[in-house]
């Protein structure tokens, strides 16, 4: 364990969460995100947790940071004036995209506006073939002629992306050198650096997105480092990436695109670490907030990884409606289902929930801030999943009557349902939507979601976990300590890590081990140079994977390579490894067909990542609730779908439960400041030695 305290900061769209860990104890706070300079909000939050925990800046050993600033800048198009220098004849790649429509029946759809307008997509003469051989040399005069264009348009950042440059970056590097000589202050991003992978649209989209947020992120990171220095911090600052690893400031400033989705990645890391600690081999994490729900599969304490992500799916979170980026990410499915999701009845008399959200302004009707449309939170309130008086630690008064009116107007009235049934209907629909997304996601990755352990967090996650588990036939649910600031807690558990990728085509029937070895060796050196910046004395685990497919197929699957040098006969072993993975995903293999490799990835991950959990259990508490919950004096009313009526159930404070106390049978409600855990009739609950709530399905019931 690192000596000294560690601070984790997660900047979200509305709140900045700050957590400090000192001697195994967590102290957290939420402050509003400050848009003018987000570093201000960060410092406010840090000051607060320092004061609460009695720590000085000098006593802090490490600051960990994740942020949605890059994501938000991309979604709101608030990045730098950016140009794209590209191969003549192909400057519209960025806008033509895949030429498809992501929604068949809506003639009004639009693809996302490109980050670089056409007049700043600047063609130069050059051409490589698919093996990186030069068909047309780079025309240096073309490149020099761009200088006045860039100046006249006040371009602050440039992406350079040529066709097939993943196979040979020479032209991109030469063009960069020419521009840098003339314009030393220009930010330059090479597509062959950020994403050296075949498929020009995705690669250029990634490079352009990186270029677009680079000046903004460089300024922000410099400002934050400066403010921390002034406040007396000497601790290193590490950034959380979408892949679930930490990286240093210089790398973060050069590749800010890898910082998107770092918050959700933190939550997945938390769930993965709990899976390892508690010995749950297969887990599904469930993070439900105000706007969306995110679901991630975790096997053997490792979250599912991929290299494809879309930023800002503007059309009902639909695949294809956002900007694609190819970066290392923890693979998740995200749907428009959160506490603020709005419910309505469609023309076919069906209740529809989301994906639009009431957000925090005006928010759910029960907030009493003028929201008139019913939301999932309103339905949760009327079902008793949320108890008025305990929401947000009692700091927000919920208006039950306003929720009732909104439901009656928009759902109950049109369907002829009473308030409670309308509320139940909304809850059932949103739960079914999330269950469907989880099932589809699992199927897409050749996995099964039933029989997993559900780890639920986020403000609305613990409210819906039991209902979701029922629909997914899941028998165990874990609600971590600090579920409301789960992402920031996850940062404290993340290892230092960096991944590099290279496209290099090979057929397994003619596999050239020396070529692969040389490439992987160079990639190892590159990754090591990055991770050693952040962990000079670290030891690292190597994960090498190849993207492989049957010759002629459209999609690759990731296959883990054996450790060490690949021998001359490696082609046979790789073929077998590919077939094992293919069979796992798709059920059967195709005999007699050659397999091809499109690219290699190599990730270095620090061994012995930090720990939070001593296993000593929640300190100094004894259970103050009896086995049937009767000792808890409070009662709440919770809707019971089986009887179709509300029944009175025990209502206990999470802080009144202690480790290894006797299991309490549901139904009951467990409230804490940021959320409520619904333990439905089919479950019992117990606190484990890591202070998690563990819900187990009661077996003796029919």
């Amino acid at each position: 364990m690192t000596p000294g305290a560690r601070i984790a900061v997660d900047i979200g769209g509305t709140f900045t969460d700050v957590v400090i860990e000192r001697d195994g104890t967590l102290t957290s706070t939420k402050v509003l995100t400050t848009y003018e300079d987000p570093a201000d909000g960060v410092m406010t939050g840090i000051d607060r947790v320092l004061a609460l925990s009695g720590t000085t800046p000098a006593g802090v050993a490490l600051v960990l940071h994740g942020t949605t600033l890059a994501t938000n800048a991309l979604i709101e198009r608030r990045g730098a004036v950016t140009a794209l220098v590209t191969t003549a004849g192909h400057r519209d790649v960025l806008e033509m995209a895949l030429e498809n429509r992501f929604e068949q029946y809506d003639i009004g759809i639009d693809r996302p506006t490109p980050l670089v307008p056409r007049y700043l997509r600047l063609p130069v003469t050059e051409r490589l073939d698919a093996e990186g051989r030069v068909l047309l040399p780079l025309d240096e005069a073309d490149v020099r002629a761009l200088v006045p264009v860039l100046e006249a348009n006040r371009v602050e950042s440039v992406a350079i992306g040529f066709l097939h440059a993943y196979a040979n970056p020479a032209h991109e590097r030469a063009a960069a050198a020419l521009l840098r000589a003339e314009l030393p202050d220009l930010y330059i991003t090479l597509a062959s650096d950020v994403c050296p992978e075949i498929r020009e649209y995705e690669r250029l989209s990634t490079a352009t997105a990186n270029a677009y947020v680079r000046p903004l992120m460089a300024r922000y990171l410099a400002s934050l480092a400066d403010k921390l220095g002034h406040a007396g911090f000497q601790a290193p600052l590490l950034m959380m990436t979408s892949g679930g690893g930490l990286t240093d400031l210089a790398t973060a400033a050069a590749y800010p695109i890898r910082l998107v989705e770092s918050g959700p990645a933190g939550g997945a890391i938390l769930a993965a670490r709990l899976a390892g600690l508690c010995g749950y081999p297969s887990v599904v994490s469930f993070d439900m907030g105000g706007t969306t729900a995110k679901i991630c599969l975790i096997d053997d304490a490792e979250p599912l990884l991929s290299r494809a992500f879309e930023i800002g799916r503007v059309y009902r979170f639909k695949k294809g409606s956002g900007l694609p980026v190819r970066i290392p990410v923890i693979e998740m499915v995200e749907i428009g289902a959160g506490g603020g999701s709005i419910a309505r009845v469609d023309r076919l008399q069906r209740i529809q929930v989301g994906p639009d959200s009431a957000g925090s302004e005006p928010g759910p009707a029960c907030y009493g801030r003028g929201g008139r449309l019913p939301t999932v939170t309103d339905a949760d309130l009327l079902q008793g999943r949320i108890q008025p008086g305990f929401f947000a630690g009692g700091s927000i008064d919920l208006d039950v009557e306003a929720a009732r009116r909104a439901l009656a107007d928009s759902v109950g009235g049109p369907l002829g349902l009473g308030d409670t049934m309308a509320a139940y209907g909304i809850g059932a629909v949103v739960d079914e939507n999330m269950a469907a997304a989880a099932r589809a996601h699992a199927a897409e990755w050749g996995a099964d979601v039933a029989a997993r352990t559900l780890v639920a967090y986020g403000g609305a996650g613990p409210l819906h976990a039991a209902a979701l588990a029922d629909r997914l036939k899941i028998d165990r649910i874990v609600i971590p300590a600090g579920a409301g600031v789960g992402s920031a807690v996850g940062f404290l558990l993340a290892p230092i890590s960096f991944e590099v990728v290279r496209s290099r085509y090979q057929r397994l029937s003619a596999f050239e081990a020396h070529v692969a070895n040389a490439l992987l060796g160079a990639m190892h050196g590159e990754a090591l140079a990055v991770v050693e910046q952040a962990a000079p004395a670290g030891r690292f685990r190597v994960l090498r994977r190849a993207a492989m497919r049957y010759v002629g197929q459209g999609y690759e699957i990731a296959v883990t390579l054996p450790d060490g040098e690949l021998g001359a006969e490696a082609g046979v072993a790789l073929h077998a490894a590919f077939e094992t993975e293919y069979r796992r995903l798709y059920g059967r293999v195709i005999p007699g067909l050659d397999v091809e490799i499109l690219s290699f990835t190599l990730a270095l991950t620090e061994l012995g990542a930090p720990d939070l959990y001593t296993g000593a259990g929640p300190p100094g508490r004894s259970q103050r609730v009896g086995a049937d919950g009767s000792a808890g004096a409070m009662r709440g009313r919770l809707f019971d779908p089986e009887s179709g009526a509300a029944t009175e159930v025990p209502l206990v404070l999470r802080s009144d439960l202690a480790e290894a106390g006797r299991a309490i049978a549901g139904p009951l409600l467990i409230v804490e400041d940021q959320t409520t855990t619904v333990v439905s009739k089919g479950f019992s609950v117990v606190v484990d030695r890591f202070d998690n709530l563990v819900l187990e399905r009661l077996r003796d019931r029919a």
Partner: protein
Amino acid sequence: MSERVDMTQLTTQLVWNRLLAIVEEQAQTLMRTAFSTVVREAGDLSAGVFDTYGNMLAQAVTGTPGHVNAMAASVAKFLAVHPVATLEPGDVLVTNDPWIGTGHLNDFTVVTPVFRGDVCVALFASTSHIADVGGRGFGADANDLFEEGLRIPVSHLFRAGVRDETLMRLITANVRDPVVAEGDLYSLTACNDSGARQLLELLEDYRLDSLDATGAVLLELSERAMIEEIRALPEGNFRHSMRIDGYDKPIDLVCELAIRPDGIHIDFSGTSAESPYGINVPLPYTEAYASFGVRCLIGNDVPNNAGSLRVIRVTAPPGSILNARPPRAVSARHAVGQMLPDVILGCLDQVLPGRVPAEGASCIWNPVLRNGHADESDGTFVTNPIYNGGTGARPGKDGLSTTAFPSGVRTTPTEVNEVTAPLIVWRREYRQDSAGAGACRGGFGQVIEIGHRHDAPFVVSRMFDRIQHAPCGRQGGASGAPGSVRLSDGTPLRGMGRDEVPAGLRLVMETPGGGGLGDVRQRDPERVRADVAAGLVSVDAARQVYGIDTDCGDTDAQSGACNSVSIGQNTRPTRE
């Protein structure tokens, strides 16, 4: 809070949602496991669940509109051959008959009955495009069905769980890529199995014996929603005709759309006769794209099922190109079929003026490129990239540039195309001045220039349209630019047919631009200036067509492209 209410209504909705999720997952499984690239990359597939009478209860949204009603109608045709009472657990049926399935031999439909105990409770069907079915290969050049490849009547692929080895050997012996064909048949079978498994779970979860009650309700609700929307429209008959290039002579697509209180009837009497080439359309495919045209505007939020589909009836005279009879050649039926939404929209423009998009390129441009007859330098290759033109201008919005409508398929990346074949795509970018002008302009087409890596000859087989007959505007909008295909020395090629590109020359294709919508004088001058600044509209066209002088100069110096200025062409009279 003590009310007790019957849960039936909510249960119906939850079961419905679950059915939609199940078929969506069925389609995703198919897409992930399919072998043919066009299924995986382009989504040329469909999946659905049916009651035991053959009524479709739910269909995946993922997939191509070309299969919409075609697949919906197919299961009843399977059951006419093999009634439910004769099926047993483990049976799997298959056909690629264009008149039972989805219109050409490449599309295989697999139907799997689902049993609960001994009782058949539902059927799952799925369709996907298998890359090769023998014959002359994908293209418009065959003269009858027998030249186009292997035709499998409705047969047992599995009988009581045992694969029919004779059928499988027959199939694999008759196609160029037997591994892919076998893999794809397994993938279709597997996706139906996954649907069946989940359906049985659903029945158990909700303690249902069958889908009959739920099915009846959801079909009725869907039909009623469609009828309500149709009743809000003026009753009457609306006619429209559209002329397209065809293979060797122009084709007239003539349509009468009748709006009645009980539904919409579409009839294609007056349409041109069958063609001696492979562009004939079997009726199921006509039904699919005709009804898709309606559903783009009417009931586009109502799920596809037997209830919503049955209120739109489609007929065409037998022997017309839209109701071609066996053994007419049908391989490239998409080249004509994908034009049908534009014809339907032409009728609806009279019903809903101002709410209907203009005509677009519509038919995908997917050249089949092969090695030259004598060229062995890089071995043999065949590749079939997909390119698109512009869509028509939309109410209140410009058309989408280089976008697949109505098909919705994706393109393959240039870099991937250049890995799979020794070809170089020298140019693929927006085509200046190709969009039809109007208050809202059409989408832009593109220019594609392809040469051989070693300047060797190569063969191109084409199924392109809208070269002689440009996409028209509506409501006073101008036509988009017609397409063009030629050699780099200027030699024009016909839109349909097969030719060799001689050594050292390149193939140049210009896809059509979409038609404009509304009077060009109503266009916001700022948007014209933006198009000029982007180099999409030339300074000359801005002046001549839009009447706007732009000071900023033509910024498109690099591309130097100023092809056909389509915008001066007149909208041809299309309304009768």
